[in-house]
């Protein structure tokens, strides 16, 4: 077993642990924190079903962003759905036999890698070209885009320029999953690609990538518009009003 194999095996275990534990910690924090008042951005659905539809439109179509800015929406939507396709396509390296629907996605996943780059470059261009977006961009906002572009770019280069032994790679990942380690080919491009993915996984729970779970805990979107029908008292707010009613002759 080469040093490279051991190091990367350990890195992937670490990254997975950080990603899962970090996200679980944030999500439980969001879930545990009460929202003391009803603050849906109205007009809002008046039923639970309506809220499910509203959230679905946000997740699938980025409805609010579409209202907000068409360019950002276009690039953002292209990037996210290309990323989804690419991730699904990568399932082939973690499943044996490969699921049928993953096989069907295969050709689309390749185009998606280009689409992903187009989306990312468009989003990054806005950070330079639009003065308002330039003003609000921190170094981390640029680096995050650079990281994603590098991941997509190194992936594409492996596909078309400097191939790696994909059979061996699959054996490596299946080995990781079943705790039966197999050697990792030390191709420089592959190692770069994998390192960047590890970085992304570790950074996720500590960065703005929390927007993914955050959306589901955003009161302006998930709350039902029914405050006249239902009271909505947070545990910490119960003490207020207990001393009621105030003295009329004060």
């Amino acid at each position: 077993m080469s040093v490279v194999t051991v190091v990367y095996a350990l890195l992937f275990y670490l990254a997975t642990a950080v990603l899962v534990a970090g996200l679980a910690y944030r999500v439980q924090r969001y879930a545990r924190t009460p929202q003391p008042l009803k603050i849906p951005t109205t007009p809002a659905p008046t039923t639970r079903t309506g809220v499910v539809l509203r959230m679905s439109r946000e997740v699938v179509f980025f409805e609010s962003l579409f209202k907000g800015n068409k360019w950002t929406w276009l690039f953002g939507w292209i990037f996210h759905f290309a990323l989804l396709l690419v991730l699904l396509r990568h399932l082939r390296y973690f499943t044996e036999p490969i699921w049928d629907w993953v096989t069907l996605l295969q050709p689309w996943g390749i185009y998606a890698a280009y689409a992903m780059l187009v989306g990312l470059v468009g989003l990054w261009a806005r950070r330079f070209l639009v003065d308002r977006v330039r003003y609000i961009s921190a170094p981390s906002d640029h680096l995050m885009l650079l990281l994603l572009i590098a991941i997509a770019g190194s992936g594409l280069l492996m596909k078309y320029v400097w191939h790696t032994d994909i059979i061996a790679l699959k054996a490596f990942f299946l080995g990781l999953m079943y705790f039966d380690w197999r050697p990792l080919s030390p191709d420089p491009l592959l190692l770069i690609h994998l390192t960047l993915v590890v970085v992304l996984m570790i950074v996720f729970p500590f960065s703005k990538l929390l927007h993914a779970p955050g959306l589901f805990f955003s009161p302006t979107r998930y709350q039902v518009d029914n405050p006249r029908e239902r009271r909505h008292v947070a545990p910490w707010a119960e003490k207020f009003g207990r001393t009621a009613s105030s003295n009329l002759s004060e």
Partner: protein
Amino acid sequence: MAKEPTFETPKLKEYPVIPLIQEGAMQHIKPFVAKAEFQERLGFPGELVEGWKDVALNRMGELLSQYRSVQVFLDACVKCGACTDKCHYYLGTADPKNMPVARQDLLRNVYRRYFTLAGKYFPKLVGAVDLTEEVLEDWYRYYHQCSECRRCSVYCPYGIDTAEITMAGREILDSVGIGQKYSNEIIGKVYKIGNNLGLPEPALADTLEGLEEEVKADTGVDVRFPLDQEGAEILLVTPSADFFAEPHVDGLIGYAKVFHQAGISWTLSSYASEAANFALFIGNYENMEKVARRIRDAALKLGVKRIVTGECGHAWRVAYSFWNTLIGPFDFLDANYPQPQHICEFTHSLMKQGVLKFNKAANDHRIVTFHDSCNIARASRMGDKPGGQFVIPREIIKACCNHFYDMAPETIHEHTFCCGGGGGLLTDDLIELRVKGALPRMEALKHVVDEHGVTHLVAICAICKSQFAKVMPYYGFDRDMVISVHQLVGDALDMATTH
């Protein structure tokens, strides 16, 4: 010292233009600070406390654990920029710190520094900053250049509502002893006297008597303006500006005429003579509950069956969205009516039942447009369907006047622009901000004035009415263009056929 501030009123353009950023353009604007006496009345320290930094960070930590909105909104922003051109204060001033995301960042950057791993170890990388006196001053400045209108929240892909962040910012400032004079003194007046204007019971009784005489002289009908009448069917809670400010008072006359025609007994309360609840603006739950509770107490004491709220934007937000939670349940009221009810819902349902007859020609000298108030549009509802807050006032207006034209679609309904004076900013020490913040609304108005000859801007909120009456002359409009929905109703109502 009290020099008249000099500034240039923005030019109205043919088409709205997003300005290029001008750093520090509004750095010189900040409202007067509240005196110790008023701070203490609200339960806050009178002046900047010793060790304010720890107190502020403690309060921030508390808010993070008490408000899911604050916690999630501070984490979720990706700096996509969709909100950057949505704030009327940014559009009117070009100060980048008036972009919603940049306003949030004032708090977020400190949150990151003290509450996140990335900010603790790599502050430069993520833009985290230490909490310094300069930061505290920026908070005071720029959290008082936000009217909490929630327009940005409509366009944010994660629904981040800058109003929640502004409220958290003001709450932290109050907790270290720096409060805004205007809002905090007004809340103090409500506790002491019962309304924002500090209008005591005898003065109120006198005013209402005067109104009865005025309406009698105008219409020949004995329309009553009852005060503290026990056993009345309805308690009307309305912004105190309705009692004497122009054009508000004509709206109050309109409500009274509607009650008269409906033949339903009603009353005002001298104890709860205020619908406004400025504690919302400072984001303080405890004070908001205390201000609201006066209304529950008054309703119980007077033994009314229903509570109806007058034309006021943030008051309706508090009433519609928060009253049931803060001071409910309203099980002592008539279960056949939604609690609380907006005066427009009340008028609208009477209209649908055919109880009210309108002579539309009475408003033929007016060509009107309607300004959706932010808190009604984006933070509440009327009727039983989403969007009723847009439909109901318009149906009322169209039922009592022949010439109605909406402003451009991207400036009405949930896209409506704030008047520029909401959220506790309706004070003369912020006049420059108010004038500049009104720019987007004025541009949309100019368009319908040029295109359709609109003569009147109908508003449904006491703050909007006062703000417009004050700033419209800066843009070459007459202050008398502003009227209440219920002034149109009152003028068109056929008073000959009594119930």
